[in-house]
C-alpha cells in the first residue's frame, strides 16, 4: 500500500524512513508545544523518544546507504546533486542529532559534569528544532532526487 501511495523507484525501507522522519518532525513540534503549555515531563518524554528513535533509524538505515552509495564518490562527485544533497543532509544531520543527544544528556540526566551542562535550554532547543527541520527538508530533497524518476526524466 505504501508503494502504491508513493509510486517512486524507492525501496520499501526508504519509504518507511521517509514517513517515520516526517512523523518525527511533526512529533518534535508537538513536543515543543507541550513545553509551551508547561507540560515539561511529557515534553521531555516526547523529544527524548524522538531523538533516540532517530538515532536508531540513522544507524540502521541511513549510515549503510550513505557508506555504500555516496561515500566512495565524495569529494570527487560533490558537484552532482545526487551526492551533494545526501552529503549536506548527512553533515547537518549528524550535527543536529549530536546536539539533540547533548540536550537529552544535559537536561534529562546527570551523566555530564556540571560545567558541560546547558544553561540556556530554550536557545539550544529552539536551534536544534530549526536545524532538525532543515535536515528533514534536505532529506526529502534527497529522497526526491534519488527515487522520483519522472521528475528527472530526459
Amino acid at each position: 500500500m505504501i508503494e502504491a501511495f508513493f509510486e517512486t523507484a524507492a525501496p520499501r525501507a526508504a519509504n518507511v524512513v521517509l514517513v517515520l522522519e516526517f512523523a518525527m518532525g511533526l512529533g518534535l513540534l508537538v513536543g515543543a508545544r507541550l513545553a509551551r503549555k508547561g507540560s515539561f515531563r511529557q515534553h521531555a518524554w516526547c523529544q527524548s523518544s524522538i531523538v533516540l528513535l532517530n538515532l536508531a533509524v540513522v544507524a540502521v538505515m541511513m549510515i549503510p546507504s550513505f557508506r555504500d552509495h555516496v561515500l566512495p564518490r565524495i569529494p570527487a562527485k560533490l558537484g552532482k546533486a545526487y551526492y551533494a544533497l545526501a552529503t549536506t543532509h548527512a553533515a547537518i544531520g549528524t550535527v543536529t542529532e549530536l546536539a539533540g543527544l547533548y540536550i537529552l544528556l544535559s537536561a534529562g540526566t546527570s551523566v555530564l559534569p556540571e560545567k558541560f551542562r546547558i544553561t540556556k535550554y530554550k536557545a539550544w532547543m529552539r536551534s536544534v528544532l530549526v536545524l532538525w527541520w532543515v535536515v528533514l527538508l534536505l532529506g526529502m530533497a534527497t529522497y526526491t532526487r534519488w527515487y522520483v524518476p519522472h521528475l528527472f526524466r530526459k
Partner: protein
Amino acid sequence: MWIVGMAATAVVALGLLLAGSPKVAANTQQAATEVKIDNFSFGPVALTVPAGTTVTWINRDDMPHTVVSMDDSKTFKSKVLDTDEKFSFTFSKAGTYPYFCSIHPKMTGKVIVQ
C-alpha cells in the same frame, strides 16, 4: 567489352558482400551483449545470449545504479555505477539470470543464457 564491365562489377559487389557481412554480424553481436541503463530502466529488459558471452551494462542515466543478480549467491554484483561507467560479467553456464538495481529495486532485467 560489356562482359568485362559486368564481371568487374560482380567482383566488386562480391568483394563488398564478403567484406561487409562479418562486419555487420560483429556489430549485431556487440550490440546484443550490451545493456543500457537509462531513465530508471534496463534496455533490453531481457537479453538472450549464448553461453560464454560477456554482457556489459553501461549507465547512461544521470543517476547512479547497480547491477545485482537476484539469486541467493549473488552470482554477479557491480559496484555503484555512475554516469557512463560500465560493468561486465561473463556468463559461462546456461540458465536465466534475473537481476535488479539495489538502489532502485523496481528496476529489473534478466539475461537468458542458452
